[in-house]
């Protein structure tokens, strides 16, 4: 190799980039959002959820039919230009009932998830924060409850309280908070003693600062994921109860109730009565699950699912 002699002089040191920074650092939330964006399935799920929400909110505006008006002459008509999704056995427009049903099903799902969230955070947070005996007692209690099949209790509660919108929500939240409580407590416990919290405290960080900058970002991720999974779980439970005859009472209808009503008709060929509610239930649950998965991956990239 022919190397020029002139190069044999000491190197000017401003060329020294011994510790150059290679990549820009984004905040935790920005990175998570980017990762979520890249997940096509999760994005699809998110779009579906937004659509469902719009359907539920704008429902009545999207149809001029009533969900409860019975026109017996029109009973069991196939989908047509007038009745987009057909009619049920009492002549009610299925499309309109789906729209109203969206409100009910989503409302139940969200309320149950929200109540779970609140109770769970309080219970789990207290247990985790105080630790020691209080935590012990609280967790023994939860463990006992956890062993009981949740749907069993829901069913029993429904029997006792009689079917209805309020009772369904109460029954679902009465058992669903356990999952959230456990997760929150687990997070609080592990975060409390984690090294970076210790480091932050050593550097003089007060409780508020630590909670804001360290505990919350890490705990919230898991909590959000859990909420995203609670919703479909509640929707499913409601549909399940309806199938057992413990659901909402007419003329109100949730998708679960509609599916139950439509069940008996598969053999008689009125597929639209089962198909539409089942489709909407499935797709909503699917969407929430996909988003939940996506969030899980976005918040914790180490977890190569």
């Amino acid at each position, binding site marked *: *190799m022919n*190397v*020029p*002699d*002139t*190069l*044999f*002089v*000491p*190197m*000017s040191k401003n*060329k*020294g*980039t*011994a*510790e150059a920074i*290679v990549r820009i650092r984004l905040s935790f939330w920005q990175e998570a959002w980017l990762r979520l964006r890249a997940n096509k399935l999760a994005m699809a799920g998110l779009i579906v959820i937004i659509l469902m929400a719009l359907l539920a909110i704008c429902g009545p505006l999207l149809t001029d039919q009533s969900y409860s008006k019975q026109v017996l002459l029109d009973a069991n008509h196939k989908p047509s230009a007038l009745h987009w999704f057909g009619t049920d056995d009492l002549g009610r427009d299925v499309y309109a009932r789906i729209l109203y049903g969206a409100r009910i099903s989503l409302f139940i799902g969200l309320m149950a998830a929200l109540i779970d969230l609140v109770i769970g955070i309080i219970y789990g947070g207290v247990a985790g924060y105080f630790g020691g005996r209080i935590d012990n007692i609280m967790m023994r209690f939860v463990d006992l409850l956890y062993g009981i099949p949740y749907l069993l209790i829901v069913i029993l509660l429904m029997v006792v309280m009689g079917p209805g919108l309020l009772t369904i929500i109460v029954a679902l939240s009465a058992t669903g908070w356990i999952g959230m409580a456990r997760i929150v407590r687990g997070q609080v416990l592990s975060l409390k003693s984690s090294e970076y919290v210790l480091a932050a405290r050593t550097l003089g960080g007060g409780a508020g600062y630590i909670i804001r900058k360290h505990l919350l970002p890490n705990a919230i991720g898991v909590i959000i994921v859990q909420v995203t999974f609670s919703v479909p779980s509640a929707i499913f439970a409601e549909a399940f109860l309806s199938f057992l005859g413990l659901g909402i009472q007419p003329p109100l209808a949730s998708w679960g109730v509609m599916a139950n009503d439509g069940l008996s008709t598969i053999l008689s060929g009125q597929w639209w009565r089962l198909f539409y509610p089942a489709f909407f239930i499935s797709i909503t649950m699917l969407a929430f699950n996909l988003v939940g998965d996506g969030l899980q991956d976005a918040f914790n990239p180490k977890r190569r699912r």
Partner: protein
Amino acid sequence: MKTTTTNASDVILEVNNLHVTFTTHGGEVKAVRGVSFTLAKGETLAIVGESGCGKSVTARSMTRLLPEHTSKISQGSIRFKGKELTKLSEKQLRELRGSEISMIFQDAMTALNPTISIGEQIMEGIIRHQRISRAEARKQAIDMLGLVGITSPEMRLKQYLHEFSGGMRQRMMIAIAAVCKPSVLIADEPTTALDVTIQAQILELFNMLQKKTGVSIILITHDLGVVANAADRVNVMYAGKVVESATVDELFRNPQHPYTKGLLASMPRLDTDKSLPLTPIAGTPPDLFAPPQGCAFAARCSHAMEVCGAFQPEQTAVSSSHSVACWLQDPRAKLVFQPPSKSSIMTAQG
């Protein structure tokens, strides 16, 4: 770009201009950028360097243990007993692994399967490579355990990983690797996870194995103390290249490369003045996504010249068994700085 060897006919492993790249989301990482060395029968070669210098990758690429889809040997040759390993199929390589070329990993706690008995883990290697009965394999396993210094080996066979201490686990791993009497044993940081006293025992075990079976050992480590103790020859690696190669004696007495000197100087010694601060090598290794054009150590080298930033240094022979890749070896460099001192006490901050 070959280093000279002691006796050509004794060479069983010959690596020539090895290049290994990884494909990642961020781009291609050139982890090994032209490594060459030889290994003779019955000798122990140490490969030293800091984390990320490519020593582990080099070791794993011998039998192509790296992940198939994300890594490749982009250039170079690996000849083992005359066979070109880079041209062998996966099936053929599997014949070699464990029987001719074996590996020992750093942490025995995670490198061994916690849900399978130790005896089974030893025996499956034997049965895989030799057509013998389970009873025969069992006997060999017991003998091997005895050889590595495990007491009551028959009982130990049925036990599980978590029932052993750290030193014993490492012995188990060595037993598993050595049981088929391989020609080459590659040990990746075998003592890093152990206490100093256990370290000494394990190194002694290597020594004993080598004397008994004539196995050649490649010892990967970042600990120069281990090198001094256990190796015959040393390769110092930095940023994917071998920067200096010598016998242990030559390396410690007459280090040539500024990086080697820096490593030696940063080691705490019993005879140094305790009131003086330790002398680390400033800076961090370069990003191997886009390796520098010239010598990778230039940014941290106090003797860097313009040529170092522009061209890769060539290998220069200091003696028949000692070579260095550094522009300071070029005669023209002698006029630039003070000539490098032959004393190993000199610091890199000259």
